[in-house]
């Protein structure tokens, strides 16, 4: 007997969306897209930036009307609660508003900015309930409290009167989810909901969303760039590129038998944690289908390039004219590490763990309170004359956001030339020749030197930042989340570029990152930071295969695996949060030397804070 054909919940056919620009011609962001979502199913829409995946979501909810875009063709057929099929592309704005919330809800990427800063969490959730369910304010708040409990927020009743800034990023995203689900929508559109979260928090939120989807029996469109997340959550996958559908299929089929070359390239560029489990040395991403040799660049003997001993940086909080300062952030607490010539030390941890403060303290963007810093064997703890010049030239920094770290009013050639002229390395026409050479080394044509940052893509801009870092011929580059803002395929290219530069010039890297899979690719040794302290440091293979600290294990377990067959339903994750490094003045953290557990492998055995 044949089953009744099930009508899909959402059926998009031939959808095109355009944005008008200043010149009057339209830019088409989505072109002829077909997409179907069945009731209760999770469809992951995957693509890199500019693929049109978010625009599609905005078109379905018609928030696109307020974002300057316009649906230029196609239909968005949605079957509402009463069973009527409506074309959302042509629905009047007022009716559309009544659908948003009770029928279709959204969760966005940025939990920090997606909540209204001047309204309490309770009022923001209750607002939607009052509007759509016509409940009194009191009843709506009661319902809001129940929603907060459903998203596993502790002490829900107390949280109702708190403001967004009083909550952590993970908690805010739970509030966003509670708000979206408060009217029992039949479809949830989640636009990169975990991208801005730390990896352990991401794992918690993903698990929560999966559970809630089952409890509420709703369909979900999950937009993401992260194949690991796709493998964790999707039933079906739709791959988009430049506004068009590349491929669509069952999650297992996409991962195991990708048909389109673009999907294959995307999957190849995804760093899968554990892919170098059996190698002791790092190895670059395969290029053009060919494996590259292992990164055997560390030169033993001789002094390390960088030696940091008991580095301590603390920030005092709230020191007004008439207030004594009451608390202190222990950003970096007795951190000791060394980086050898030609070596990459990966410094990993979650936001607020002090990894960036460590990097910034080394080059004195922050002023450390204590500790010794030696660069190529000589003391640079006190910046004076010779030592300062040596440090400033020998250690360069690459930041996370390549757009913000280039002056928009200067050509990139000028930005690259600046360290050459300030360090008086060259003068006259030789500078320009050198800039061209540096651009070539980072894989850009020398003509790009005449361009301005806004004329380059994100990946190209980060290449420019690397060229600028190379300009003063440094021995060590501190890369602070340098590939975090890049798309996966670009990220792989930039990681490979850094590794090629290391092979050619024997450069050393302090590679600060939250991304364990990238660190596995690039690092010879790994240091794990938690609450301002290094809790584990050792050879990459040892730390990742046989982690000795509980926090390292938790961090590794939370990394999504880009393989739907290894879906980590029950990885024993808890809903605990990383505590704050902010402490009372009379309550300094416990500090103790690390204990050796293997060759070059050290681990903290004392209580650092929180659970560990």
């Amino acid at each position, binding site marked *: 007997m044949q089953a009744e054909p099930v009508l899909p919940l959402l059926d998009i056919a031939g959808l095109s969306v355009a944005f008008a620009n200043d010149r009057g011609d339209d830019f088409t962001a989505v072109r002829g897209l077909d997409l179907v979502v069945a009731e209760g199913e999770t469809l992951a829409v995957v693509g890199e930036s500019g693929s049109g995946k978010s625009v599609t979501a905005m078109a379905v909810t018609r928030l696109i009307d307020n974002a300057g875009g316009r649906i230029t063709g196609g239909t968005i057929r949605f079957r509402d609660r009463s069973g009527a099929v409506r074309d959302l592309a042509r629905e009047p704005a007022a009716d559309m508003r009544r659908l948003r919330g009770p029928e279709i809800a959204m969760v966005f990427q940025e939990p920090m900015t997606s909540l*209204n800063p001047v*309204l309490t969490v309770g009022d923001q959730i209750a607002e939607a309930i009052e509007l759509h369910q016509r409940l009194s304010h009191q009843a709506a708040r009661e319902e809001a409290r129940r929603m907060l409990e459903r998203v596993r927020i502790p002490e829900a009743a107390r949280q109702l009167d708190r403001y967004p*800034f009083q909550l952590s990023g993970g908690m805010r995203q739970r509030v966003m989810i509670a708000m979206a689900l408060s009217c029992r929508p039949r479809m949830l559109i989640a636009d990169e909901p975990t991208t801005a979260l730390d990896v352990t928090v991401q794992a918690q939120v993903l698990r929560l969303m999966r559970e809630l989807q089952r409890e509420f029996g709703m369909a979900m469109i999950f937009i993401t760039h992260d194949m690991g997340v796709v493998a964790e959550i999707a039933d079906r996958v739709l791959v988009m590129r430049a506004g068009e559908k590349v491929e669509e299929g069952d999650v297992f089929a996409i991962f195991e038998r990708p048909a389109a070359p673009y999907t294959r390239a995307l999957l190849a560029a995804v760093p899968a944690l554990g892919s170098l489990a059996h190698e002791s040395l790092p190895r670059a991403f395969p290029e053009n289908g060919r494996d590259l040799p292992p990164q055997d660049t560390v030169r033993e003997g001789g002094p390390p390039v960088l030696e940091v001993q008991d580095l301590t940086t603390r920030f005092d909080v709230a020191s007004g004219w008439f207030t004594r300062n009451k608390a202190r952030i222990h950003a970096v607490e007795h951190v000791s590490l060394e980086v050898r010539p030609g070596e990459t030390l990966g410094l990993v941890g979650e936001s607020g763990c002090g990894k960036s403060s460590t990097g910034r303290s080394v080059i004195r963007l922050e002023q450390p309170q204590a500790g010794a810093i030696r660069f190529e064997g000589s003391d640079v703890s006190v910046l004076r004359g010779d030592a300062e010049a040596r440090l400033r030239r020998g250690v360069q920094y690459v930041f996370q956001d390549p757009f913000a770290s280039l002056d928009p009013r200067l050509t990139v050639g000028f930005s690259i030339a600046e360290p050459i002229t300030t360090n008086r390395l060259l003068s006259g026409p030789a500078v320009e020749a050198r800039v061209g050479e540096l651009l070539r080394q980072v894989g850009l044509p020398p003509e790009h030197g005449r361009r301005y940052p806004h004329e380059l893509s994100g990946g190209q801009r980060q290449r420019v930042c690397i060229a600028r870092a190379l300009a003063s011929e440094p021995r060590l580059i501190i890369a602070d989340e340098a590939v975090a803002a890049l798309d996966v395929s670009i990220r792989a290219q930039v990681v490979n570029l850094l590794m090629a530069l290391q092979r050619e010039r024997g450069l050393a890297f302090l590679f600060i990152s939250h991304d364990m899979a990238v660190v596995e690719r690039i690092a010879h040794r790994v240091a794990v930071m938690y609450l301002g302290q290094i809790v584990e440091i050792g050879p990459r293979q040892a730390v990742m295969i046989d982690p000795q600290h509980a926090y390292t294990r938790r961090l590794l377990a939370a990394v999504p695996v880009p393989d739907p067959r290894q879906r980590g339903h029950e990885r024993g994750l808890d809903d605990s949060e990383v505590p704050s490094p902010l402490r009372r003045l009379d309550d300094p953290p416990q500090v103790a030397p690390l204990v050796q557990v293997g060759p070059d492998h050290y681990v903290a055995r004392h209580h650092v804070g929180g659970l560990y």
Partner: protein
Amino acid sequence: MLSYLLRRLLGVVPVLVAVSIFVFGFVRLLPGDPARLMAGPEASEADVAAIRHDLSLDQPIWEQYGRYARGLLTGDLGRSSRTRQPVATEIGARFMPTLWLTIFAMAWATVAGMTTGVLSGVKRGRWQDQAAMVLAVSGISFPSFWLGLLLIDLFSVRLGWLPTGGYGTWQHFVLPSLTLGVAVAAVLARFTRSAFVEVASEDFVRTARAKGVPERLVILRHTLRNALLPVITMTGLQFGFLLGGAVVVETVFAWPGLGRLLVDSVSYRDYPVIQAEIMLFSLEFVLINLGVDLIYAVINPEIRFR
């Protein structure tokens, strides 16, 4: 909240001490000798010296400051060297006209300016927005003496509805406060618009729409409330400026206010009056700023909870 208020009030003290020192010093940097100006061109050296002694100008400067500071603490502002009247009386007589004029001008200008700004922001890019902004730019650039004279010509001379100048009944307030408020309304309209447009592109405004909040509430509850913060700062600043007395408008409408008193005092090198007026302006500014910060704390929980 209470400790915040107390802390802020305490913070006012060093500001006022610093201002009193600066004012005292700068007034004495003005070229010209008050004693000679008072004595008149025919006076002998002995007369000038007598007046100078009388005004304590022959004493060392720190003793003069000490005397002045003691006076400030005990509420004695001294006597005007021009009219021989107590400074408090001089300023007191002029303060209320300026205060009322400022209040009337600010009241209509704030309402008109913010309303125009929000409407412009909502209709941004359309003709309503463009028309409002043309008006706003005109309002900022139109010289107030010219506007005042035009209004007098129309409403007082031709139509005979309102008095040409002076201080007294409510009719006297109409034209001066209209003239004074135009520039403020224009500035606030532009300021409100840009703040509104900026907040309108924030993620949480999109969130509000995503949960189906009606447009009217998106504007009022989610956008405007967040856009108010910079607008309130600007309103406070404008309020402070106007309280300092609008010399031009007061002159055009023969208004007995603080602005004209200050100009007269400067031309006579009337040190006590100049000092007292500037101290008063500083105090007003500091208090207005304090008020602005308190309103901030009410609107923005992040400040309240710090």
